[in-house]
């Protein structure tokens, strides 16, 4: 099933190569189907989650829906797929966001439609593959698959400075992934050079002493992932990439691509080297909490609506970083709270930020500006679009009752025992985040309707269709987070156990 989820989009992309590029509608339909197959295939996995067999093999301990074949046995590379709570939630997010992004592209992307859709489908294979792979080499292959389509998607369909943004994105992430590869190969050799399986590696590397080289390896991995997260101070590619990327790509970038970094930390750097993670937890905490405050303040000063939202991604992912950092030094019971909270932050951000970018896109499509100084009085002009924007802004600033709050609240509940009143700094970030959201809403939505924007069309059915599923989830998980929590439960327990063991 996982292979289908991963490769169905790729297969569809191959099929689409044979469709003439003038058949745009057909291409969209095919791409839609290609992205919906994984969605449909994921549903039974979610439904049958609690009943599914949990693997006890060393290569997939604690994983479900495992697929395992030898690939290059000589160096210990195998084709191993398997998911736990951390992975399945991300896959669910990914298979939900891609069809939505394709729908959002319909009628919006007008040039080179065929190339665009094929790249999008390849991207989907890449992300789903990263979340399914349990073998490092396999993981790395998918990791790199993600990189290229993204480069072209920004570089070809982006805005005015698209080439600068695309190159910046590419170099940042490429450097990150090369550094990561070096770290991983070092650990592979240290572990005896018999297997690239992540779980098998972890059982060995987590027993290594903390030396200069293991520390180097840890930070090599973390920096590689931190670029994707993005973690302060490796974040500056993100605002540029977002500003230049077309709306659907921004949705995917914020919604799912950033989660590759957070997921990889959960899956690789921290289970592999929990002992180093524990010793240097303060580094991650310092960077995370600085990122929360820094990004909130930086967002406040932006003049470009989309850039603001981009900085808020850095802000939110900072909560994940501090949660992970806290989990690596806490006793098991509180570590579970922190981990769960941090991960829920990433899930909630994956649901909320895409529609926030979409909201920005709705304004841009109508007014052709993202300049906060030029927008204004939109509640009078386009009330429904404005209402949607206000909803998502409140969700993003962490209003209780909506999904964003649950994660932040549990995160800080878990982080408090580890770092005490330092959480006040994150708290200050919450206030500043609220401040700029309110100021932006005042600038864009409130006030007298502007003459130049009179008569703009209000929301379309397509826009409602894109917005509704994610908005519904935002409310649902805000009032009833149990579904996510149940999915995560086992994985959180296992990981906190792994981390706690490495701490000895």
């Amino acid at each position, binding site marked *: 099933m996982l292979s289908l989820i991963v490769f169905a989009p790729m297969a569809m992309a191959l099929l689409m190569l044979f469709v003439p590029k003038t058949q745009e509608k057909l291409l969209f339909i095919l791409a839609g189907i290609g992205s919906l197959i994984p969605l449909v295939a994921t549903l039974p996995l979610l439904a049958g989650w609690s009943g599914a067999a949990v693997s006890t093999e060393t290569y997939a301990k604690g994983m479900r829906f495992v697929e395992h074949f030898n690939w290059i046995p000589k160096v210990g590379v195998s084709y191993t797929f398997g998911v736990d709570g951390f992975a399945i939630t991300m896959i669910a997010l990914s298979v939900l966001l891609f069809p939505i992004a394709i729908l959002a592209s319909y009628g919006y992307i007008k040039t080179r439609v065929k190339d665009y859709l094929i790249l999008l489908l390849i991207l989907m294979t890449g992300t789903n593959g990263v979340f399914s792979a349990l073998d490092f080499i396999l993981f790395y292959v998918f990791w790199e698959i993600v990189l290229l389509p993204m480069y072209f998607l920004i570089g070809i369909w982006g805005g005015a400075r698209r080439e600068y943004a695309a190159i910046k994105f590419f170099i940042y992430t490429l450097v990150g992934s090369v550094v990561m590869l070096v770290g991983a190969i070092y650990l592979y050799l240290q572990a005896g050079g018999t297997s690239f399986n992540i779980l098998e590696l972890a059982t060995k590397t987590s027993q290594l002493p903390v030396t200069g080289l293991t520390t180097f390896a840890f930070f090599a991995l973390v920096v590689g992932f931190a670029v994707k997260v993005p973690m302060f101070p490796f974040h500056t590619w993100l605002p540029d990439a977002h500003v230049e990327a077309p709306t659907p790509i921004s949705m995917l970038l914020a919604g799912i691509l950033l989660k590759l970094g957070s997921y990889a930390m959960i899956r690789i750097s921290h289970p592999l080297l929990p002992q180093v993670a524990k010793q240097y937890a303060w580094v991650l905490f310092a960077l995370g909490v600085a990122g929360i405050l820094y990004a909130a303040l*930086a967002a406040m000063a932006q003049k470009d609506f989309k850039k603001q939202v981009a900085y808020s991604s850095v802000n939110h992912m900072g909560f994940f970083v501090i949660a992970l950092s806290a989990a690596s030094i806490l006793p098991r019971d509180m570590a579970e709270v922190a981990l769960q909270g941090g991960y829920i932050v990433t899930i909630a951000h994956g649901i909320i930020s895409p529609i926030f970018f979409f909201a920005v896109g709705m304004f841009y499509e109508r007014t052709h500006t993202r300049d906060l100084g030029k927008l204004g009085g939109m509640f009078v002009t386009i009330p429904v679009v404005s209402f949607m924007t206000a909803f998502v802004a409140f969700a993003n600033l962490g209003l209780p009752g909506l999904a964003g709050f649950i994660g932040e609240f549990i995160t800080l509940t878990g982080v408090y025992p580890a770092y005490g009143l330092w959480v006040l700094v994150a708290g200050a970030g919450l206030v500043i985040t609220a*401040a700029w959201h309110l100021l932006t809403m005042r600038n864009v939505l409130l006030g007298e309707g502007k003459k130049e924007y009179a008569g703009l069309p209000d929301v379309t059915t397509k826009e409602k269709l894109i917005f509704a599923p994610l908005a519904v989830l935002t409310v649902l998980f805000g009032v009833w987070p149990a579904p996510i929590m149940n999915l995560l439960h086992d994985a959180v327990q296992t990981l906190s156990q792994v981390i706690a063991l490495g701490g000895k």
Partner: protein
Amino acid sequence: MHFAETFLHSAWVILALPLLTSALIAAFARSLQRKAWIFGTGMMLVALFWSIMTFIAVAGGGHGAAEAAHEGAKFLIEPAWHIQWDAWGQFGSYNMKMGLQVDGLTAVMLVVVTLVSACVQTYASAYFDGGEKRFTRFYAAINLFTTGMLGLVLADNLFLLLVCWEIMGLCSYLLIGHWYEQEWPRMGQIKAFLTTRVGDVGMMIGIFILFFLAKDLTWVGLAEKLPEVIAEHGALLGLGAFLLFTGAMGKSAQFPLHTWLPDAMAGPTPGSALIHAATMVAAGVYLVGRAFMVYGNAPGWVLVVVAFIGAFTSLFAASIATLRHDIKEVLAYSTISQLGYMIMALGLGGWAAGNFHMMTHAFFKALLFFAAGSVIHAHHHNQFLHKMGGLRKKIPITFAVWMAGYLALAGFPGFSGFFSKDELLLAAWTWHPEGVHMAGWLLKLPFIMGLTTAFLTAYYMTRATYLAFFGKPRDHHLYDHAHESPWQMWAPMAVLAVLSVFSGWGWAALPNEWFGGEWMLFFEHLFHMPGIEHVAEASAAHAVTAMATTAGLTGIGLGLLLYKVVSPNTRAKWISAGKPIYNLVRNKYYVDEIYNVLFIETTKVLSKGISWFDGNVVDAIVNGLGKVGTQLADATGWFDKTVVDRLVTIWADISRGIAAQFKRMATGLVQQYMLTLVIVVVASVVLFQVIR
């Protein structure tokens, strides 16, 4: 009783009704239009009926089963009804339970909230004029707000309370910004949201600490577990309790987080009456009262701090209210002051007194806002007291109800506020903080501050009343056009006026002494908090009553003296004599200006700086690295072209030369070829040997 029990056991309906109403009004906004008020009020009356029945069931007792469960737990009122949902979710491995509960305090609050909300919805239907564009939005928000407030008082744990708390914050934001085309509402709504948010962050950290200590956030769980951790983690519990209180400071507008409430008056007056007078702002008081298992168990200094913040706020805000010109602003500062009173009472251990005053205040302050709204409505949206005057003849009903509210707030004997204020001051008089040693004068300081506030309150209300309703009209044009409000406005005011007069009689300690009617101590029994024994000698009670009454009457007398007897010219002379103090108070002690510099401007500068740093330093480093890369590439390119290429060309030239020589060798002679071959082979062998 059996009949009423049915309602108690389905108390969740009270919460569901306004939520449904809000959703339906939002969904059918277009077809409902102005009819939304009938629907909203109707549904709220059902909820009110349900609440009253619940109240009767709780007050009548007969729920012994639940009572036995937590016998002996200190600082916990046994819920009369409690449901819990186990499958809400988990915090790590801790099961979080969501639930609703009803006890005496909740039951009273249910009635108060639904009653005021029903009144507001009736009143607002006539308050908004025909041109109001966002009529249904107001009703949807009011009903959502009511849901939040009802959820807050029904919540059986801190987490749900926080969620409802913020939902109310959102509705408050929406209602303040109701007329968002204008600048003041837009600023006011942001100020309100952010100021309370500052408190909320502290509150959240307080909740984290409590969770860390007790691994439980339900009231029952906290009451059971906190006494066990106090020995080991006393200081931390104290910190948690204080931080929890910062949330209350934000919501209930206590100094130094009080500045948002006056600006919240930018919203429509009916909304102000419900949210910024009667209910939401009392949520902070409710929190301290509800979470008393935290405060009761925490080290004594926490409640002392709570008490002094409350006492200071009440005095501070009352002094500002004496010089406000806008009728709503007077009431806003009065609200802050009265909330300070309640907070002070809770801090002093007067748990029942604080909550009692919260109830009476809800009635008379909502009434005063209604009446003020009616005055403003009658006066063509003029809010300035100095343009009013003599209105009692023009709008007699409004005048009558205002007088009821005024006398209740001023603490005139017999009115509801008189009894609750009396209880407050009695709690202050008999204060004995546990575990904290203080000088004798400090022990009496809250009482002195409270008494001064009582005096100031009577004074500023007399001043406002006189300026609005008595004397000669100051603006004849406005006066001539003044008109009485329609029944939708005066009917709710009449209901609240009755309650403002009589709602104190359920706790009339003095008449109880005189007449011996047990029912007169009704609220004292209903508000009984296990762990707090309130003993006051009769002589002390009489002394306090005498002092409080004197203070109130003196205040009224001073108001009349200054505004009825003394001429405006003399008043102006007196003001110029005390100019510095007048300016200080008139400018609200410059708190807004200080905050503006200290926080707003600083944040703005900081944010600009960070943004500059991000663009010009962090990014410059990245771009610099990129530039180094490209220059390195350029250098390599140059090297490649000039050096490597040159070498290659040189080699090419050399080999061409050699080739030319070889060409000469290509003579076609086999021998020569052979010779060359041998030489090459030998040379190769020699070379190979040498290298090896």
